[in-house]
Structure formats: C-alpha cells, structure tokens
C-alpha cells in the first residue's frame, strides 16, 4: 500500500503537485493517469525520496521509504529505462543494484529470466533497443521482490508481444497481492490492464475510482442496434429513446434497456442483426475528464 498525504511539490513558481491525497491499494493494478505535466513522475520521485516534498509526504506500507534498510524489498521502481550506464552489461547493472540491498545473487538470474533477457544479459546495455531497456528496467524493479511496484510508463517502446507480456506480468503481480502502480498514456492498454484509476491534472486529484465506475460514470451507456427496418428508429423515439443514426446505417440508442429495444423490434417485425452495449472508451472518458486540466494542448 502506498499512501500519499497532502503532497505538494513546487519548483520555484511551478506547482508540480498540489495537495495530492490518495491511496494505492494492494492486490490490484492502479493506473496513474494524467495529461503531460500533470505531476505523475514528480509524485513518484517524491515517493522514492529522490526529490523533497514541499509539504505532505508519502508512506510505503506505513514506512518512510528513505529510512528503509532494504528499500528494494519495499518499492521496486522503473523511472527512466534509459538510465543505465551504456557500457555496463545488463547482468552487471542488476548485480550492482542487488548488492546495494544485500539481495541474494540468484535474484539477478531470476529476474533476467522473468523479463526474457537471459540471452543478452552479458551485452552492454547501450546496445539494447528501447524495448529491451524497458525490460531491463522492469527486471530492476522486480529484483527485491517488492510489495509495491512503481512503474513510470513501463510499456513505452514494447512491441505488441511485449505489451501483452507486460499486461500479463502486471496482472500476475497484482494477483500475488502486490500494489502495482502504473503510469501510461496508452489508454487502450490501460483499459485492459488496470483495475483502478487515479487520475490527476495540474497536480490535483481528479478521480480515484475503479476502472468500471470511471467508464460508466462519465459516458452514458449506449446500445448499437443494427436492423434492416426503416421504421425502427421512429418507433424507438416514440418509446422515449434517444436515437442517433450512424453513417453505416446502424443506430446508437440510449435511454432504454436492451430488452425494450427487442420488444419494439418484435412489434415492428424487424430482424435485428446486432444489438450490443457501447461504452465510451477509456480514451474518450479520460479526455473529457481531464479537458480542463490539459496544459500543453497544442493548436487545433
């Protein structure tokens, strides 16, 4: 469990994190989302003691991370996959980290195996592709078998197989009862991976809710109806539904239940070829939830 209490971090005039309070619970994957510059990385840096909070603080399983005897057993972090010495081998990089926390040497081979880098472990990290570096960063985070994983954009640069692998790994780690915190801008991936979301904007909390509730709450459920019957739309409207025509001839219906649509279609003697619930994608919901907090929008 990672608790953030009233965290504020200022860089001169810039307020990167502004009175943020939230708790990341164990046993689930929490997506830590927000537009560019929202303060996600800064929050993680403060949690790891790399930067000093202006006010408030962060506790990892009730402890102050900076005072831990064996910190890698508490929090495993991936901040910047590029932050490895280019001339050092992956194995030496992990060995040095393991030694700093007095972790048994076999952990190095174990994590290399888990991320699939065993074969290239002797190569200089500078020769690694972005995705390989990302895997090395994940390996470093796993080294101490930590209860909390703090991963800043861990899937950037992974290929489709790698992304699917990372998703499985995150789910597995959460299933083992760990606190998995994942920041990413890849919404479609987040939708598949996260159970819970903490969304921030301009350093402030926007929502702290389950993925399902976030998706349901923001976008009203719609039904996609495909039927070869011109009169159906009028009949649905007459029954109080809101109906929008799609370019491909299908109807987007809201305000009535699926069973009502079925009954009306039966009465109209219309054959339905598709009747499916449509949720707003996480991307849609995220963009509407953070619209007011986007700092670097760019010209439209």
């Amino acid at each position, binding site marked *: 469990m990672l608790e953030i209490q009233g965290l504020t971090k200022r860089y001169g005039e810039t307020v990167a994190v502004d009175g943020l309070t939230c708790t990341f619970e164990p046993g689930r994957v929490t997506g830590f989302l927000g537009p560019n510059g929202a303060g996600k990385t800064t929050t993680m*840096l403060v949690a*790891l*003691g*790399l*930067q*000093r909070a202006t006010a408030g603080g962060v506790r990892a399983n009730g402890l102050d*991370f*900076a005072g*831990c005897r064996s*910190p*890698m057993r508490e929090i495993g*972090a991936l*901040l*910047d996959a590029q*932050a*490895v*010495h280019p*001339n*050092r*081998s992956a194995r*030496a*990089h992990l*060995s*040095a*980290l*393991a*030694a*700093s*926390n007095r972790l048994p040497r076999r952990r190095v081979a174990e994590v290399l195996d888990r991320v699939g880098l065993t074969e290239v472990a002797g190569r200089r990290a500078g020769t690694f592709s972005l995705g390989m570096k990302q895997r090395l960063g994940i390996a*470093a985070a796993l*080294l*101490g078998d930590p209860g909390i994983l703090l991963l800043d954009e861990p899937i950037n640069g992974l290929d489709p197989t790698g992304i699917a692998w990372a998703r499985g790994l995150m789910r597995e780690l959460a299933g083992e009862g760990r606190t998995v915190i994942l920041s990413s801008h890849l919404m479609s991936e987040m939708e598949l991976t996260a159970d819970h979301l903490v969304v921030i904007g301009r350093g402030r909390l926007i929502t702290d809710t389950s993925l399902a509730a976030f998706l349901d709450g923001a976008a009203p459920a719609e039904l996609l109806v495909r039927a070869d019957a011109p009169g159906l739309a009028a009949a649905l409207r007459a029954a109080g539904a809101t109906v929008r025509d799609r370019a491909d001839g299908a109807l987007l219906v809201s305000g009535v239940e699926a069973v009502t649509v079925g009954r009306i279609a039966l009465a109209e003697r219309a054959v339905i070829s598709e009747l499916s619930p449509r949720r707003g994608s996480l991307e849609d919901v995220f963009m509407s939830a953070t619209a007011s907090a986007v700092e670097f929008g760019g010209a439209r």
Partner: protein
Amino acid sequence: MIRSEWIKLRSLRSPAWCLIALLAVNVLFGWMIATAQARQWDGVAAWDPVRASLSGVIVTQIAAAVFGVLAFTTETIRSSLAAMPRRSRLLAAKTLVVAVAVLLAGLVAALLAFLAGQAAIAARGVPHAGLTDPGAARAIAGAGLYLTAVALIGMAAGVLTRSTAAAVTGVIAGGLLVPVFASAMPEALARFVVGWWPTAAGLRILATTPDRDMLDPWPGFAVLAGTTVVLMVAAFVTFRRRDT
C-alpha cells in the same frame, strides 16, 4: 554497498584504462624527468633524485582526477538512489572504492617510476637513491596518497557540478594550471601559490631535501589533505540535500 560500488567500477572498461594510463604515464614521465634532471645537474645545487623520479605525478594527477570525476558523473545516480535512498552511504561507498583503487594503482605507479627513474639516474653516473634511503619510502607512499587526494577532489567536483566537463575543467585548472602560471602572477600572490596552493604544497610530500622557502613534506601534504576534506564535506552536504 561497497560491493555494489565495486561491481559498478569493475564492470566498466574505462576506469581500468584510466588507471593503466595513470601507471604507464607515471613511469614514463618519472623516467623522462629523472633523465632530464640528471643531465642538467651541475653537481653543486641541491639534488633530490627521489623527487625527480616521482615528479611524473604532476602529469598523472590528471588521470587520477578524471577517474574521480567519472566515478560520479557517468553513473545514473537516480537509479542508484531509487534502490538505496541513504545518500551518505552511497557516496561514502563510492569514495572508499575510488580511494582504494587510486591508492593501490598510485602506489604501484610510484614504485615503478622510482625504480625506472633511479636506474636512469644511475646510468648517467649521477648520485641516485635506493628504496631504503631516508625519505624514499615516504615519498613513494606520498605519491600514492597525493594521487588519491586528487582523485577525491575530482569526485567532489563531480558531485558539486554534476557535469563531467565542468568538473574536469575545474580540477585541471585549479590543480594544474594555477601553480603553473604562478610566475605570471603578482609577487605576493605567486609566493602564496607556490608555497601554499593545495596541489603545490601537496607535492612537497615527494621531497627528500629540505627547502627553506617551502613547507616540509607532511605539513605540505596536510594542506592538500585538508582541502580534500573540505571539498568532500561540501560534496556530502550538497548530495544529501539536493533534488536529483
């Protein structure tokens, strides 16, 4: 923690090359300077064969300083600190590993330079020194200590500036150029620089003949050691406090 830093150092090639270069240049310059000074000696002036053979450290201190700078600036401090947030321990382990590595390399380099230099002097028929002569062992150990101090000053500069270029420039300018250009300075300042500037005073540890205008060997080295301690303390305080 110390083992971690040792793994980091050992797993790269450049630190090893840096120390090999230190060794080779020290022996080469020790031999060259000894040869040159033996040839120029008029048989009357004070003659210090020990110092002549060890004066290569004036050049090799660059390698020591660079070694110290790189030990800090090329490392990804964020990933180290994310794994070990106790900053003083991290820096202390780095300091120890750098100091021991440079001390060992420096001692070997000084011993070899001494032997090569004395052989060159003896070949010219000029009085030379042996290992058991008074002050010789102290001067050889002193050369190792001098290089260690310079390496730690380099590391402190690396911590304080967080930039390889700035730290290397700073240490070479401060350690090497200031004493070299002392003659171009106003009289009083020049006298201070020649006698008391940390690297100039520190080199007195190589001397085996007294010089009334200069500090004695150990007091001279103490000036350098004191400077090193001050810079290291500044580095520790800064490193503990700042955001990374």
